[in-house]
């Protein structure tokens, strides 16, 4: 079993985490209040690695039993947030359980597990509309609750992951068209509910002059990236980074720090590592011995892919500004540990891909 533990994947993830620690140091060393952030990131990496191995050792098939409770737990916590959640920066996303917890962070996994179970359980019947509609409706409940927090980024993430799982599990083309038509019909209503900040982000993306503040962040990110050239300015030497022209350097815009300090070559290598991780996850999905495992791994892969895509796209100014972090590289304990757990789940799947293993 241990034989099938995906070592290239594991080391690629650890390497990314190492780069993340180094870049966190570079992005925070010039701010007195944040100087210990790289140590925290190191601590979370170690914690994450332990969580990864623990998740790998845990047999993912037991999760099938937890699928329904997962969904229930997710809904309960989201409803709780709705009524008694903590408000920060104008959004009600946190539950105070001694420390503030954001249920949607774990919600991604709960939803992956639940949909992996639902779709694999009804795999032979999913081509029938009622089962598909059931999946869509079960998805809509949590989505609406997250959307009203408001948290557009998380809503889109959850929709993307669940959508990917539904598509990968197999859908009739006509049903896809139906879905697209339904969304198009609902758009005018949806649009009215978009929060101001969401609209502004879209606006800013389409017309960077309209919001000076956000446009400034994106502009400074582009300058940072361009400032890197072929080889970069060197670690902890990026002027845009060091002199704070780049905002939220250690989280949303860590990619720009990498680009400025490691240059084109270094950044392409980092991107290659990220895509290698996703590639390995897709390979695991192909090897999975059952549909449940396959869908879980695809869920993990789509989660990592989606966050990478949105974050890098934002840094490169080909997507609007959202507060989404870059997996393994951005500073942030809960995000890092949850990503490592996700990779651990995939490891659990690949370790058990042979039904019988006598070796």
């Amino acid at each position, binding site marked *: 079993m241990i034989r099938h533990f995906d070592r290239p994947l594991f080391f690629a993830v650890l390497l990314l985490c190492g780069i993340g620690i180094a870049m966190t140091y570079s992005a925070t060393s010039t701010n007195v209040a944040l100087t210990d952030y790289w140590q925290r990131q190191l601590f979370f990496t170690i914690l994450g690695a332990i969580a990864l191995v623990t998740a790998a050792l845990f047999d993912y098939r037991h999760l099938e039993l937890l699928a329904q409770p997962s969904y229930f737990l997710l809904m309960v916590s989201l409803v709780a947030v709705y009524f008694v959640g903590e408000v920060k920066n104008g959004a009600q996303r946190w539950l105070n359980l001694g420390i503030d917890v954001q249920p949607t962070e774990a919600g991604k996994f709960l939803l992956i597990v639940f949909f992996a179970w639902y779709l694999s359980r009804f795999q032979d019947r999913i081509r029938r509309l009622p089962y598909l509609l059931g999946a869509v409706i079960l998805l809509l409940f949590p989505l609406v609750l997250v959307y009203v927090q408001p948290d557009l980024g998380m809503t889109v993430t959850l929709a993307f992951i669940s959508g990917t799982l539904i598509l990968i599990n197999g859908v009739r083309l006509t049903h896809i068209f139906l879905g697209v038509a339904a969304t198009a019909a609902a758009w005018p209503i949806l649009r009215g509910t978009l929060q101001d900040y969401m609209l502004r982000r879209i606006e800013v993306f389409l017309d960077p002059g309209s919001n000076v503040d956000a446009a400034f962040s994106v502009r400074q990110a582009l*300058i940072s990236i*361009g400032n890197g050239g072929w080889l970069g300015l060197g670690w902890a030497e990026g002027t845009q980074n060091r*002199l704070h022209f780049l905002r939220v350097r250690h989280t949303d815009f860590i990619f720009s720090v990498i680009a400025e300090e490691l240059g084109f070559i270094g*950044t392409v290598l980092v991107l290659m590592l990220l895509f290698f991780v996703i*590639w390995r996850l897709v390979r695991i999905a192909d090897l999975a011995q059952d549909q449940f495992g396959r869908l879980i791994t695809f869920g993990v892969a789509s989660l990592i892919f989606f966050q990478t895509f949105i974050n890098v796209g934002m840094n490169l100014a080909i997507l609007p500004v959202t507060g989404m972090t870059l997996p393994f590289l951005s500073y942030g304990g809960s995000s890092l540990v949850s990503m490592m757990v996700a990779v651990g789940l995939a490891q659990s799947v690949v370790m058990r891909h042979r039904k019988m293993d006598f070796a």
Partner: protein
Amino acid sequence: MDERAVRTATTTSIVVRLTLAATFLVFCFRLYSLQIVSGESYQEQAAVNRLREIDTYAPRGVIYDRNGEILARNRPSFVIAVTPADLPADDLNTDIDEQRIALERLLAVLEANTDPEMAIRIAEVMFLHLGREDFRNTVESAGFSLSFRLIDVEVIELDDEGREVVKVEPTLIPDFSEPLPIGGLLALLERAVAHGTQGSSYKPISVLELVDRERAFQVAEETYQLRGVHVLQKPVREYPYRELAGHVLGFLGPIPKLAAENYKERGYEDPNEPVGLNGLEYEYQDSLRGLPGKRLVEVDILGRESRTVNIVREPEPGLNLSLSLDIRLQEVMHNALARQLEETGAPHGVALAMDPRNGAMLGLVSLPSFDNNIFSEGLGAEYKALEVEDDTRRPLYNYAIGGLYPPGSTFKLVSATAALAENVITPYTTLVDRGPIYLPNFFFPDDPTQAQEFVSWNHKLNILHGSMTIVEGLGLSNDIFFYYLGGGYPDFMVGLGSERLAKWMRLFGYGETTGVDLPGEVRPIVPDEQWKRLELAESWTTGDSYNMAIGQGYVLGTPMQVLVSTAAVANGGYLVKPQFVQEMVDAQNQLQWQYEPVIKERVPVDPGLLAFVQKGMWHAVNGNYGTSPNSRVDGITVAGKTGTAEFCAYDPEIQDCTDRDHEGNLPFHAWYTAYAPYEDPEIVVTVFVYSGGEGSAVAIPVAQETLHAWFHDLRP
């Protein structure tokens, strides 16, 4: 899995992998375009972001007197300031306000709660930070009351053509005689910090200025654990002799708003840079300033300097000025004049001393004077400067070059020279004072009751001077003699007349400014027939010539012009330009500039004839019945001329001149102008006392003491 599922799975995994590869390639392509294709442009923008050229001030030039005494220098001084960004922020989860506590501790360290003077100084700084409105609102909303008073602030500003214009602005300022309670100060401080947070919160906000070294170190020690409190260095211009040479030296202040454009064109980039606003500080601003250095620094997004990348240009210290002024002589003149003003109750006066050979100014006193330190002593003291400007006697005004007065009998030097040069009289012509003379009325020449009476000062004392030549005429200052010179008398002699009087007045420099190297000099008019017709729509009369010949009527001049005209008599007819700065020396003590005396046109009079005017001045001091024997100095021959000039300060309320005596006579300005030694003049002194009365009584002692000090105590 069935076959279809396997096929779907294979298709899916191919589609997924293709998507991954495509995304990766798009990202790489975009990266390439940003980093490689447009890299250079972005690198330039990054450089624009982080690099700034910063001016570093050069030390301002020092001003020395003729003996090397320092008259103006730069003193290190300290400012206690808070940086809003570094202050502890108010943690909203606690009930206490952390920022308020920090500011409270700072005020306690500065002893604002126990020392009323400290509280007043801090309040003054806050007033200048916040402005009147905000200051009042803040204090009142903190629950304290505040009284205000209105004062006139007089500022010299540059107009479009770069000339100085005096503007008066009525200004309300709070009455600081009572210190604010600590709560009020705290509210002000919080308000100022809140303002700072809106701009660049890394810019320090001064709390207390002009802190001396010892106190600064003490505060620094006590505040080292107070986050956000800094002790900054800021040089202050210092004038060790305080009000002694206030008008000569002038003072510094931030660039006046109206002249901002003008200064900008001259390379003054910081609108708050202190520049000379008056006196030599103004006149020699560019030389004293030197050349600010330039540094290329790296700044962060908030404009904080992180390091110096490159020193583009080292600052070049300003040039040091060496004056011909002797501060010890200045002190003698100042004290003597101040004493005379106090004794007579005269509102203001002037004393001037100059070397007649080259125009080198030895002293200039205009009273009331002011202590120019109060202008340079930073923000808090600027408030005191307002009080100086509030004085109705206008201490900021330099009466020596800015005041126009009838020169009275001192003008007889001009009429006498003119009459001799124009052959109206010879040096030996005698004219007789038989008492008042009467000019027949132009329209009723045969009616003696309508004739205009002209008296000499001595007639009031029942003295007749009898017959005299020009020498006695000057020595006794007989007015009848000069009436005849100025206007002649029907059927008896032809006088100079308006045109020739005006011509000689111009020749003695009255039509022009003297060109002294100080700002604010006024230029009087020279009255003649055309002028009177245009201004007053009247024709010139013989009586006008009479009055003009004795320096009354329409004749006006500044004390500086009287000084220059006296010098022209003393030095044999040369009109010199008065000049304070003789040399400019750079920081390496290398001579950079030396004054070449400017001798303007020589007054076209035969030196042999001019000698009789000199003799007349000698007679006034040393001859029988001379007007000014009191100006004699032991061992030195002094020559002088008194002046007692009637003036009319018209008051529209009473529709008459103010200060008439009980007989209705007008008040007098007292003048005395003299030079010594008679044989080989090396100093000219002119004294003027506004409404001082008899010249001999009030002005002579000042001149005498000045000359005595020069020849017996000071002369090298």
